[in-house]
């Protein structure tokens, strides 16, 4: 039972008894740290936001805000956690807490500890204040936190009033040292395996489920009572954490969080760069992985349409070795794929060169952090006013993400003109089998498919 403890607000706390389905949130609340709250239990409201020390992109360690309601408590073994209580106390407020308090950033106060933690993560982001007099605060850091009282204006002003951490700030200092080691852990119901080999062996057992950010599994557990036999942590495995941008292919480790991918790609794949800010919230992206997103095979996951448009393929890893499958052939039905038991998504491969025209249209009720009614990803190559290549990925219109092949065929080899676009748009509007549900009517979904191409045409202009 190595590492059956976690360091919380600087104190070592035992994880004894912290078996799944106990969440990190309930564990923290159970040891008296009731600042973090359960507002929704599905990673939508951020009232449970806490900070964990993770390997950083721009610094050795980063204080990363996550939804504690989704993460199994056991996965905190050997990790370092900071909650709102650990940031400051009423007599000596943390700078984030001070700005929130004096500006009226709290009314009922229930969402406040979560906002404070999300804000603190961005406060400590390396390079936030560099090269500017402004606070440099990226408000996307707060996209996963809901407040029902304030209307957000004072919260935004608090964020934008933040200066750089002072010298001697121990949490800032902590980011300069290496992150906690992800040592092997074996707790009842949860294992963090020593290596990929052990992980694959465990995953071959009945009832075992791969666990990364737990942003989907946590919802299944909290809202639907899913109780997998064994959770196998995989997001620490080095084989799943690589990222290379080569001349012919971009390879992305399936165990990297979307936030890590976003920052490490740094715009190298423009279509994905458009998706990331629209994909759930920063809190979710800090946990969610590409492997998890494609592994759950949701028909409306926003990444799949984009990766389909990019002609991506997946490298599936098992004890028997590796195999590469094109994403277009990966989905076989509603939440079903060609992935066999014991197989793990290892890497995603995106071939280069990329099509020069890339666009991601997400239609949803809310502008950010909403689930798509329809998602459309375009990767189009125009040569001399003619469509040389067109790939269109769709989400939310069928049992699986799909390619709009008929619309693509109507574009390729033809001039990029209003007439051609209108014709292709009509074909696009007939793609899939959009349904009526609480998010949108089928008629609206069909209309959105068609107008998405017209909108793209209006935005980039016709053939010159």
């Amino acid at each position, binding site marked *: 039972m190595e590492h059956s403890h976690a360091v919380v607000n600087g104190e070592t706390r035992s994880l004894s008894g912290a078996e799944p389905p106990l969440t990190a949130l309930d564990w923290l609340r159970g040891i008296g740290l009731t600042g973090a709250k359960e507002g929704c239990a*599905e990673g939508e409201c951020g009232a449970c936001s806490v900070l964990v020390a993770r390997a950083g992109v721009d610094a050795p360690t980063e204080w990363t805000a996550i939804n504690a309601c989704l993460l199994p408590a056991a996965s905190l073994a050997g990790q370092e956690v900071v909650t709102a209580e650990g940031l400051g106390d009423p007599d000596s407020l943390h700078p984030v807490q001070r700005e929130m*308090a004096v500006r009226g950033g709290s009314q*009922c106060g*229930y969402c406040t500890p979560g906002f404070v933690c999300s804000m603190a993560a961005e406060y400590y982001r390396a390079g936030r204040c560099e090269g500017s007099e402004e606070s440099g605060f990226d408000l996307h850091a707060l*996209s996963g936190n809901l407040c029902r009282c304030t209307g957000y204006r004072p919260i935004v002003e608090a964020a934008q009033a933040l200066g750089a951490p002072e010298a001697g700030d121990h949490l800032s200092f902590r980011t300069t040292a290496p992150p906690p080691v992800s040592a092997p852990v074996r707790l009842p119901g949860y294992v963090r395996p020593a290596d990929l080999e052990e992980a694959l062996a465990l995953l071959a057992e009945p009832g075992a489920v791969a666990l990364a950010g737990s942003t989907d599994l946590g919802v299944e557990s909290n809202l639907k009572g899913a109780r997998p036999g064994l959770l196998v942590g995989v997001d620490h495995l080095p084989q799943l954490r690589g990222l290379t941008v080569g001349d012919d292919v971009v390879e992305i480790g399936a165990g990297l969080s979307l936030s890590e991918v976003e920052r490490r790609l740094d715009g190298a794949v423009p279509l994905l760069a458009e998706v990331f800010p629209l994909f759930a919230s920063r809190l979710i992206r800090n946990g969610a992985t590409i492997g998890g997103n494609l592994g759950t095979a949701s028909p409306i996951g926003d990444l799949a349409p984009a990766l389909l448009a990019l002609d991506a393929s997946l490298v599936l890893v098992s004890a028997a070795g590796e195999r590469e499958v094109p994403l277009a052939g990966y989905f076989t039905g509603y939440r079903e794929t060609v992935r066999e038991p014991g197989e793990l998504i290892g890497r995603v491969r995106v071939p280069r060169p990329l099509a020069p025209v890339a666009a991601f249209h997400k239609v949803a009720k809310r502008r950010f952090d909403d689930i798509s009614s329809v998602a459309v990803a375009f990767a189009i190559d125009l040569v001399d006013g003619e469509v040389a290549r067109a790939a269109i990925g769709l989400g939310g219109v069928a049992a699986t993400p799909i390619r709009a092949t008929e619309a693509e065929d109507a574009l390729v080899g033809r001039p990029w003109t209003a007439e051609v676009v209108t014709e292709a748009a009509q074909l696009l509007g007939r793609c899939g089998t959009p349904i009526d549900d609480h998010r949108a009517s089928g008629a609206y979904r069909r209309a959105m498919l068609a107008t998405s191409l017209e909108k793209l045409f209006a935005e980039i202009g016709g053939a010159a």
Partner: protein
Amino acid sequence: MSRLSERPATAEVGVARPHESAALHVTGRALYTDDVALRTPRLLHAHPVCAPHAHAFVTRLDPKPAYDIDGVVRVLTADDVPGVNDAGTKHDEPLFPTEVMFHGHAVAWVLGESLEAARVGAAAVEVDYEPLPAILTVVEAIEEASFQGMQPRLERGDVAAGLERAAHVFTGEIDFAGQEHFYLETHASLALVDDDGQVFVQSSTQHPTETQEIVAHVLGLASHQVTVQCLRMGGGFGGKEMQPHGFAAVAALGARLTGRPVRLRLTRQQDMTMSGKRHGFHATWRVGFDDDGRLQALEATLTSDGGWSLDLSEPVLSRALCHVDNAYWIPDIRVDGRVARTHKTSQTAFRGFGGPQGMLVIEDVLGRCAPLLGLDPAELRRRNFYAEGHTTPYGQEVRHAERLTRAWDEVLTTSDFEARRAEIARANAGSPHRKRGLAITPVKFGISFNFTSFNQAGALVHVYKDGSVLINHGGTEMGQGLHTKMLQVAATALGLPIERVRLAPTRTDKVPNTSATAASSGADLNGAAVKDACDQILARLRPVREVLGPTALWDDVVRTAYFDRIQLWAAGFYKTDGLSWDANAVQGSPFKYFAYGVAAAEVSVDGFTGAYQVDRVDIVHDVGDSLSPLVDIGQIEGGFLQGVGWLTLEDLRWDTSDGPGRGRLATPSASTYKLPSLSELPADFRVALLERAAEDGAVYGSKAVGEPPLMLAFAVREALRDAVAAFRPAGDSVELDSPATPEAVFWAIRGGRP
């Protein structure tokens, strides 16, 4: 000026102060009901057994299988109730029903050593149902004549003559949605029974006295055997005015039967599935205007979706009828109101309490009719404003109507309204796929509970021998800053620095017989009661001060008074004078005063998708002479955005199919029901308090602020209509759904749903 409204030259009221618990909020130290529960030893956890039908008889309920589950301690059913099996004040809400009235209705509760044990135990309880036909929409209810409660009629003048006189008569219909409260803290209760059988319930409740009464009648106890405390709430918005009682009663029943503390906290899905929401309404109307666009007559029928029981539906309907005029003089008017009974959650109070629904009707009428009259909507609205001397359709004088025009003119000026409108028209002409819209709308909102008796409050003020002060009042804190204001009122009344005053949690054994903290009245009522108590103490201290001299320090005066055997604590009381209300006739002067406000909003709309954003909002709002400006600005901004959520984004859907899921809430979670997030904050958001607005007769000249700003959000709805109109042929009347989701806006641009 009345003594109550007189403000000393230097006063703690009027100072911009952060929330009194801000430092506790930001550090995670502020305790809420369920945080206390987790600190309670030997705790039991409660989980409901929810019916999977919208309407059904329970034909058999067998709790025995639950007892086979490890950790299940007790299953609570109707047989366990020693008192009255009812959770409401109208005796139409069985706590353990034999007839299921909505999908998710709890028919039993399971207590477990852990929540997981209770959850699994609840799933093991065997229940047989005989499904019955279910009515889900207001339209279905109207067809089936399924109504409940009073059917009031508001009438003035001769509506037939008014319509006859009118040069232009239009008719219309609108069916608009309710709203989920989505307080971040779901319903929570913690009940304990002490050695003497005294029941102590901590509850997230806006109405501790009524929670106490319901717990008492379910347990068959007198009120003095039950104490209810509310430390603070993580938001209420009306959702915790009447809805907490049944949950508190279940926890109390469990504690009484087991002798152990019982925690009942709903998950978000349970809370959304089981607790009431803002009423959606259906309205039909016929309106008449003269050639100048002046309203001549309005005839309307408003039918609210009350859900399965009456709850607060009747007073909500009353307030809707009392606000269908909003800011407009309508000489001849007749509005009929009725409450539909549907098989859904029992819809309840929600910030505005029917006011927003009434106003939506008239704002929709004006927004739709302006192009038909060939008038600019802003001009049409302005032309119909109340003027001094006018009365409302229910017979109350519209006092301070000039504040409405003052706020309107100020917003027109500060928002540079006319110039921007011209600029927007030019820009729209050159932008086929993206249009901007601009609109300005007023709010007039009546303050006081319609039901006169509720307009009373009590307070308890203790001065200790060391000069420190502890106050207690009947109001509850849900984030609205009431406690902050009460500290400021007490400090002002006693002439002390605010640090000398502390506030103790709301408890029914401190201040009894309280009214709900609702109707925006918390500060008006409790503030006056706190001030009354302080004034009593000051009056008793006066002889001491006369002896010690005017320069004597407070601490010395207090100490001397103690030795002189002078009572250093006082119970304060307040009732609002001059109110009258006949609920049957829908006539009287139910409101102490009106709160006014005006908002101008600019939006931009994408013609390809209907997606939009709010680019700029300018607000001038009347809070009287503010007790606490930071708190009041926060209420205005927060209320406004909550209103924007109701009108644009928040989309409650039920399964209305004939399938097995009929009646199920299809949006029972944060992932399916979206409320405004930071991205909905207007890019440019300017809020100002109306100046020279002191309110005579209210505490320190202030006005209530909780509800009225929500209705400023009509400016956004009307701006969306304006932007849609820019896509449409000139002169088109634009019909817009509510909520005006991107999909609704898209179809409005296309001229209607396919």
